[in-house]
């Protein structure tokens, strides 16, 4: 602790900070631009000036940049000093010399850090009479809009894009007052995190292009805290709605999970909520293979109660993209023995085994924050940038940990970003990546390994053996691989916070076992090793907790004629099992009821289709890959017949006279029932205050107090304003009414504070800068490592991968844009998604004359696919890659042996 004096009052601050951060943590309003809490100080903008005094006797003082001055013990500064104030006002005036007269047509307006700081410093009148500099803008792809005139040269964008996120295609060009922030030419931004420019840039240079299409100001957005549903990491988001349409998603700070950033899939994938693929009303198909016709709620419930008559054998198929509550409601309706998790057999097995590893083993599951702090990382089989993008961003920060130690020894403070980076140069901590194909973070890896899943697992087992030679030895490794294993083991052993990253990406249990073995071996050695598994969907872990068996079992039951009716919850089964098998299922089961929010191949076959709410229209709980249960809240009330899945299930229970339905009035009731039925979910009750939470008797308003148009929004329907709808499931109101002040962190609907309209307002909600939110970060970890003497190591080492003569091993590849089911419905994401292809190593095609893009035949599991070839030179020999889940592709069980162009068999090694 250090004591600093601000305007002659002493304050206790944490040591090792810069003054700006200390002042902001203490709640002072010091204006700034170039400083960013995650990227620290470079002292570029001169906006954060304060006056510093040598000692008590010093009355003259000197102007210093608070972001470049350490908050050392005994520092005396003045924020209110007239000279410092005048200086800050002057700086803004200079920054504004060339600023266009754009606020009314600028998408940043109303949440513009530049506006806020201009007001804060008191600059209000433009005295400069000369002409303004202008720039030409660039096309930067479907996500980010560019309007360069508004730039104030704070350099935050390039510091984020290049230094923090490792992007290469955004830079600063030209010199003196012509500096230009953009690409070398028009084109789509390549980084998976480009959307963060929107929040990082303090002005309207980079704005959200998807928002622009249906532009709404921040003050007009109805918001609620939410959780991203597009991957398993559970990043915290704030979706905003207006006029019944979701308008954008912005970041919700959570120091343990996503911090200040989101990936582009999470930020721009929201548009599926507004898409034409949404199911708007109740549909019933009178017969298979005819069009479904709309019917009323009552009719359909009547029909369903007929289907679910007493004695009918009804099964329920859940979904890893639906909330715990919805899945539990389904489980309660059909009974635990008839409930199936809705995951494919392999997925189901992998998830169960991961949960077991995390619960029973000594290694703790790592949050993204833990990942960032790790100083040696080994990635096994997971292309993180494409399956769990924010994990990739966190790994980029982790490689700075070891060099940072060295900087600290040189007495360079952590916050002095420019100095740290200059001293660090390209030095990086150890990050090893073993995957079948190249990944987007290979550039920061200390070593990479390309191999088939089994070989990756073998490398992992070899590393584990190096760490603990009681573990099974891997025989037959090449000396190169052996050397690599040794190196990895050494680095991990020498690290303070080693981390093993793996996941379901390879669809290989062996890889996961290897990862566990390494982490456990380290733990046994007394290292605080952590494990981080990427998983397929936002609630994969949650489903693991709920139990049930895989879809395969459901299909089997149907095959055996043990099923009269099936209820499919928010699940496109055609993405998880073989189409032929499913078609058989549909033939066998006469009544298939699908509850979903988008039309899918499954709903195209279903007999009854019930329109469910998407994540923005429902309240529920999901569990992320770390085991953190987090609640997402309904943002707005959907129109038409749409209602939450669990409401549909409750209605069905009521229609078929299941008494439980009567007891389930609110979400809290379901949560209570769920935690009672599944004790391992007990803590879900504590993740957020219940629906009855009130602050001074008031709810939390979803609409900000400046929300406009209240009396005109719907007056064209009816001029008499109806009473705002009530929310029985959450302590939020669907209006501006409520307590606009500090709330428990899971209930913060938006970051706003007087004078802080931009995202930077988050500093008023943090305990300290970069610390947890006041009242603690949201979510509760449900998985903690067991207290185990000796972990139950995995002992089966897979055999080495052998290149087959006429066959090729097809492994799944992933795409951040395209592989995820929901986000790809959004037009922007769809634009960036690839078409299905087959990735082959050109080495294997030598002499065949096959060109890239040429269509090629792939025979897999007895079926033939025609796919264009894509060359991927880092694929190991004998391995081909097939992208997973792209629109227009079919589900295939992977990894699997296939044959390429069989009539021309000699092309395959």
């Amino acid at each position, binding site marked *: 602790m250090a004591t600093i004096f601000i305007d002659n009052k002493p304050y206790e601050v944490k040591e090792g900070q810069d003054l700006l951060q200390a002042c902001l943590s203490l709640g002072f309003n010091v204006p700034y631009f170039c400083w960013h809490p995650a990227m620290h100080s470079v002292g570029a903008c001169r906006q954060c000036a304060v006056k510093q005094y040598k000692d008590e006797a010093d009355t003259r003082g000197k102007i210093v940049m608070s972001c470049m001055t350490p908050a050392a013990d005994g520092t005396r500064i003045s924020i209110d000093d007239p000279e410092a104030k005048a200086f800050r006002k002057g700086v803004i005036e200079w920054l504004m010399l060339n600023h266009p007269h754009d606020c009314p*047509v600028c998408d940043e307006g109303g949440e513009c850090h530049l506006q806020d700081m201009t007001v804060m410093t008191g600059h209000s009148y433009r005295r400069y009479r000369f002409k303004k500099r202008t720039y030409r803008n660039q096309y930067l792809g479907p996500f980010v809009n560019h309007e360069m005139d508004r730039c104030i040269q704070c350099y935050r964008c390039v510091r984020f894009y290049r230094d923090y996120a490792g992007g290469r295609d955004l830079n600063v060009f030209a010199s003196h007052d012509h500096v230009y922030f953009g690409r070398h030419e028009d084109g789509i931004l390549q980084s998976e995190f480009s959307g963060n420019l929107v929040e990082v840039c303090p002005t309207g240079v980079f704005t959200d292009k998807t928002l622009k299409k249906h532009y709404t100001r921040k003050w007009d957005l109805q918001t609620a805290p939410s959780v991203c549903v597009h991957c398993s990491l559970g990043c915290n988001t704030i979706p905003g709605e207006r006029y019944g349409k979701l308008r954008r998603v912005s970041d919700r700070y959570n120091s343990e999970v996503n911090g200040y950033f989101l990936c582009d899939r999470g930020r721009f994938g929201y548009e599926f909520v507004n898409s034409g693929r949404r199911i708007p009303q109740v549909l019933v198909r009178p017969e298979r293979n005819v069009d479904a016709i709309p019917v009323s709620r009552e009719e359909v419930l009547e029909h369903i109660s007929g289907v679910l008559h007493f004695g009918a054998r009804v099964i329920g198929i859940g979904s890893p993209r639906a909330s715990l509550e919805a899945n539990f409601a389904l489980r309660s309706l059909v009974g635990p023995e008839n409930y199936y998790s809705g995951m494919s057999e392999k997925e189901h097995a992998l998830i169960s085994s991961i949960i077991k590893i995390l619960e029973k083993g000594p290694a703790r599951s790592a949050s993204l924050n833990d990942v960032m702090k790790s100083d040696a990382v080994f990635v096994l089989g997971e292309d993180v940038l494409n399956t769990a993008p924010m994990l990739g961003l966190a790994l980029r920060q982790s490689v700075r940990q070891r060099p940072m130690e060295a900087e600290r020894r040189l007495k360079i403070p952590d916050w002095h970003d420019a100095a740290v980076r200059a001293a660090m140069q390209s030095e990086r901590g150890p990050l090893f990546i073993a995957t079948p194909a190249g990944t987007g973070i290979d550039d920061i890896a200390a070593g990479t390994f390309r191999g088939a899943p089994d070989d990756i697992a073998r490398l992992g087992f070899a590393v584990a053996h190096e760490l603990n030679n009681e573990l099974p030895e891997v025989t037959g490794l090449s000396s190169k691989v052996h050397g690599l294993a040794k190196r990895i083991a050494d680095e991990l052993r020498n690290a303070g916070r080693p981390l093993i990253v793996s996941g379901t990406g390879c669809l290989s249990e062996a890889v996961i076992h290897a990862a566990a073995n390494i982490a456990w071996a380290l733990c046994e050695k007394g290292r605080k090793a952590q494990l981080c598994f990427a998983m397929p969907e936002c609630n994969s872990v949650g489903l693991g907790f709920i139990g049930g068996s895989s879809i395969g079992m459901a299909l089997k039951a149907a095959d055996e004629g043990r099923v009269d009716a099936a209820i499919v919850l928010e699940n496109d089964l055609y993405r998880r099992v073989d189409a032929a098998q499913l078609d058989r299922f549909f033939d066998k089961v006469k009544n298939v009821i699908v509850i979903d929010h988008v039309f899918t191949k499954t709903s195209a076959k279903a007999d009854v289709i019930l329109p469910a709410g998407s994540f923005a229209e429902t309240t529920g709980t999901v569990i992320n890959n770390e085991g953190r249960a987090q609640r997402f809240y309904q943002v707005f009330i959907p129109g038409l017949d749409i209602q939450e899945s669990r409401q549909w299930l409750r209605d069905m229970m009521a229609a078929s006279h299941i008494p439980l339905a009567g007891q389930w009035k609110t979400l809290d009731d379901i949560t209570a029932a769920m935690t009672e039925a599944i004790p391992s979910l007990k803590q879900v009750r504590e993740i957020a205050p219940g629906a009855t939470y009130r602050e001074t008797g008031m709810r939390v308003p979803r609409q900000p107090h400046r929300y406009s148009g209240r*009396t*005109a929004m719907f007056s064209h329907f009816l001029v008499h304003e109806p009473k705002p709808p009530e929310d029985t499931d959450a302590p939020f109101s669907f209006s501006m009414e409520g307590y606009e002040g500090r709330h428990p962190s899971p209930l913060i609907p938006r970051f706003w504070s007087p004078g802080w309209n931009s995202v930077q307002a988050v500093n008023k909600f943090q305990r300290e800068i970069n610390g947890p939110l006041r009242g603690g970060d949201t979510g509760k970890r449900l998985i903690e490592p067991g207290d185990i003497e000796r972990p139950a190591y995995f002992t089966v080492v897979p055999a080495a991968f052998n290149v087959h003569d006429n066959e090729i091993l097809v492994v799944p590849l992933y795409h951040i844009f395209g592989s995820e089911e929901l986000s790809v419905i959004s037009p922007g994401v769809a634009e960036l998604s690839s078409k299905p292809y087959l990735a082959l190593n050109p080495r294997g095609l030598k002499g065949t004359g096959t060109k890239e893009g040429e269509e090629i035949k792939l025979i897999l599991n007895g079926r033939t696919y025609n796919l264009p070839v894509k060359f991927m030179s880092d694929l190991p020999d004998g391995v081909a890659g097939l992208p997973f889940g792209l629109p227009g592709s079919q589900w295939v069980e992977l990894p699997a042996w296939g044959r390429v162009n069989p009539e021309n068999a000699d092309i395959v090694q």
Partner: protein
Amino acid sequence: MLSLLKTMWTVFLHLFRRKITVSYPEEKPYVPPRWRGRIILSCDPDGGERCVACYLCAVACPVDCIALQAAEDEHGRRYPEFFRINFSRCIFCGFCEEACPAYAIQLTTDFEMGEYKRQNLVYEKEDLLISGPGKYPGYNFYRTAGLSIEGKDKGEAENELPPVDVRGIMP
């Protein structure tokens, strides 16, 4: 006591004073030009819709009776896709006009807008839009704004330099 009687007498004499009441509607009252009556949306001197859908009027409105949605036309101009004022709520405070950076929304001297049905007091953009510039004849927002639209490229607005040549190497 006497003062009371005097008061009564003075008041009594008012019986013979000229009445200040204006017998509207037979007699039309004088309405000053800055009267805050029926709201219109004006057009700029070139005939383009002035409103740039910035939402400032809507947020300034104390009774929240303005609702609109921004959109962009093929010329790159922002315009309101719809613009609705619920006059049954409007208190004619004029805040919207003060907030408008484009001089688009203006209050006029017309106050004769009584209706038997409240629903008829909901005005849409078609009801609000006039063809002229209203009280502010010369102003065109896009001539001062940095945003380029069709017909006004970067550097062509008032007080602007031509766009920077990023590849230039002159100091």
